[in-house]
């Protein structure tokens, strides 16, 4: 049993509020043989500038510090790849630094940018993330990614990170999914939903109009994970511009309040020790007293079935901004759906549903843009961007893409940013005849979870409309 001190559990108390001013994204794809990374990064930066009616040169005048999220140096065989980008963006002589936290790199980049503005060091900060995973053969890419696991204890076993991860999916499947065909179908519904939403997103790499049966009939990767349960491997860039209140309102009319928190857990799944469940505001200790009876094998926490890092990121974030219940207090979320089953695990870790009941978020229809059961708007739509399964997982950019996507809804500009024929044409993608504006009407608060691998790092970003701030942050 391990415990945490009060000092470790302290809720962040920032020096001043921080705002998201704008954001931008490149096209996302599996490979861009004719494009250098800097071209993708400049695409993202240009979109961010144009979004608030500025030229890139004008936007650059505001920036005081730069954070660059880029996970896998190995892929490009270029150390200090961040410095290459910083130079190409012409942002000398500003201080800059690279951020690397695996799959959570994008979220961590925002976390750093946030703290830099909140502290007063900078009034305006660039958080730019990208990844380039097309420049090695796939099996070598898998081997490089496996080097993010423990080099001595894990990597030599197959050089396949998915395998180290998948044992957790297996445990969840057997303990909480009870190996039920109905649960397997619920997983498939997530894959159908996210790929379907990606069809409305011109940036997206993996749009597909498919059925639950298509998912269930897709090749087995590692049962219960099927090919269509898994996220994409992508190339692309995304950025966000964060500023203090005065600067933010100088740069645009409607910046959004942004708060970012982070948690961590062991790099090796093997090292997870037993502990009590850290509770979120909408949970009680009593409700979990019989978890092991309801779900035999489910009494070990976090065991292989929960992500402590996600739980702690949510713990800090909810108390920081005053979230009592994420389903009631938020209007939409973007979650790290690396696999359909880890998406369900996240619902529990961040308190959208209690541990063991994640599947009901899908089965109730709450996670859909339009609830398929009631035909009404979903209570808390998830991954309208298409997520990692349908849109992209260009590692260093992913966590930033999620936040930009949530923000588009809150700015009430989702339709404009995803529906413009010009953008579909520019990306060389065909706008579907049944394209639909997925704008979440009246969105005032949203959340994004950025997650690394087996759960070593997780960040939680909360966006709030400044006129609709929650009360009661501790």
């Amino acid at each position, binding site marked *: 049993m391990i415990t945490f001190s009060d000092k470790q559990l302290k809720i962040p108390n920032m020096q001043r509020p921080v705002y998201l001013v704008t954001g931008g994204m490149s096209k996302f794809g599996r490979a861009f043989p004719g494009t250098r990374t800097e071209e993708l990064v400049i695409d993202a930066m240009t979109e961010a500038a144009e979004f608030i009616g500025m030229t890139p040169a004008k936007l650059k005048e505001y920036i005081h510090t730069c954070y660059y999220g880029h996970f896998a140096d190995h892929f490009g065989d270029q150390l200090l790849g961040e410095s290459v980008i910083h130079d190409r963006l012409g942002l000398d002589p500003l201080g800059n630094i690279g951020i690397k936290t695996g799959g959570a790199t994008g979220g961590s980049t925002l976390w750093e940018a946030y703290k830099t503005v909140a502290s007063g060091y900078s009034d305006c900060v660039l958080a730019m993330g990208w990844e380039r995973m097309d420049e090695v053969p796939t*099996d070598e890419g898998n081997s490089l990614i496996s080097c993010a696991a423990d080099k001595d204890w894990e990597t030599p*076993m197959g*050089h396949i990170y*998915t395998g180290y991860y998948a044992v957790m999916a*297996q445990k969840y499947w057997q303990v909480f999914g009870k190996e039920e065909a109905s649960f397997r179908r619920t997983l498939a519904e997530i894959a159908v939903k996210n790929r379907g939403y990606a069809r409305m997103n011109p940036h997206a790499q993996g749009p597909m109009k498919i059925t639950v049966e298509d998912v269930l009939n897709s090749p087995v990767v590692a049962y219960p994970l099927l090919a269509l349960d898994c996220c994409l491997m992508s190339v692309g860039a995304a950025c966000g511009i964060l500023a203090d209140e005065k600067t933010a309102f100088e740069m645009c009319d409607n910046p959004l309040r942004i708060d970012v928190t982070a948690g961590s857990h062991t790099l090796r*799944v093997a090292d997870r020790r037993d502990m009590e469940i850290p509770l979120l505001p909408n949970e009680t200790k009593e409700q979990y007293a019989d978890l092991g009876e309801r779900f035999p094998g489910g009494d070990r926490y976090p065991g292989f079935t929960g992500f402590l890092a996600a739980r702690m990121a949510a713990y800090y974030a909810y108390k920081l901004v005053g979230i009592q219940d994420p389903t009631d207090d938020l209007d939409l979320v973007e979650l790290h759906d690396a696999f359909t089953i880890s998406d369900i695990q996240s619902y529990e870790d961040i308190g959208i549903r209690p541990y063991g009941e994640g599947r009901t978020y899908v089965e109730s229809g709450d996670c859909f843009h339009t609830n398929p059961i009631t035909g009404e708007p979903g209570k808390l739509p998830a991954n309208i961007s298409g997520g990692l399964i349908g849109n992209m997982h260009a590692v260093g950019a992913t966590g930033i893409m999620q936040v930009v996507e949530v923000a588009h809804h809150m700015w009430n500009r989702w339709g404009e940013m995803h529906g413009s024929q010009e953008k579909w044409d520019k990306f060389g993608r065909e706008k579907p005849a049944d394209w639909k504006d997925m704008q979440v009407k009246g969105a005032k608060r949203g959340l994004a979870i950025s997650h690394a691998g087996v759960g070593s790092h997780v960040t939680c970003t909360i966006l709030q409309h400044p006129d609709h701030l929650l009360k009661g942050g501790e």
Partner: protein
Amino acid sequence: MKVEHLASKEEDEKRGTVKVVNGRYKPSGLFHYISLNTPIKDENGTLMGITNPRDMTYIHSYGGEAVFFEGLGKGKLIASRCDNPDCVTKGSIYMPFRIHCPDCLAKNTPVDITDRARGGNVHSFMITERTGAFNTLPTPIKFVNVEFEGVCTILMGALAVGEPKMDMKVTPIFRTGDPQYIITDMLWVPVGTPADQLPEHYTF
């Protein structure tokens, strides 16, 4: 166990080796092979980029974990235990071996848990056909996560014989013949597996 694309014995003999002499690494032999770049062009012959071949050998230190990796080749599973009387988690046994206690940071004591590991319980598992480059395990790989009585962590390994199931009892086997001094010197088999079914070089 047969590995595809494994370097030949002759190739391996040419590859560099390292000794530690007077507290310093002393490499000898060839540590990298140089190949020329080749152009990458599209269908029209337009230059898109180049290949960058690179073949290197890293030098990697085991430090305080060497006792564990050396133990495998001798048929021993060496865990570590915090014996600091002031530690809140005193007495915890770690497998994976941790040089220091994660709570009090005192130096842990190596403990032989080979007997305890015989009859370990499979906490989870996964079968995968997919591997990365440089894999040396036969496919499909059958990952098993094994928990042991009195050990606070759950070790990942690979099952060499049979099909994995939740809560099956497994026992470790060790590459005592021709050890490679890496984690795959230890694999797992179901309890009761006869010795003649073990992979080449491995013993109980």
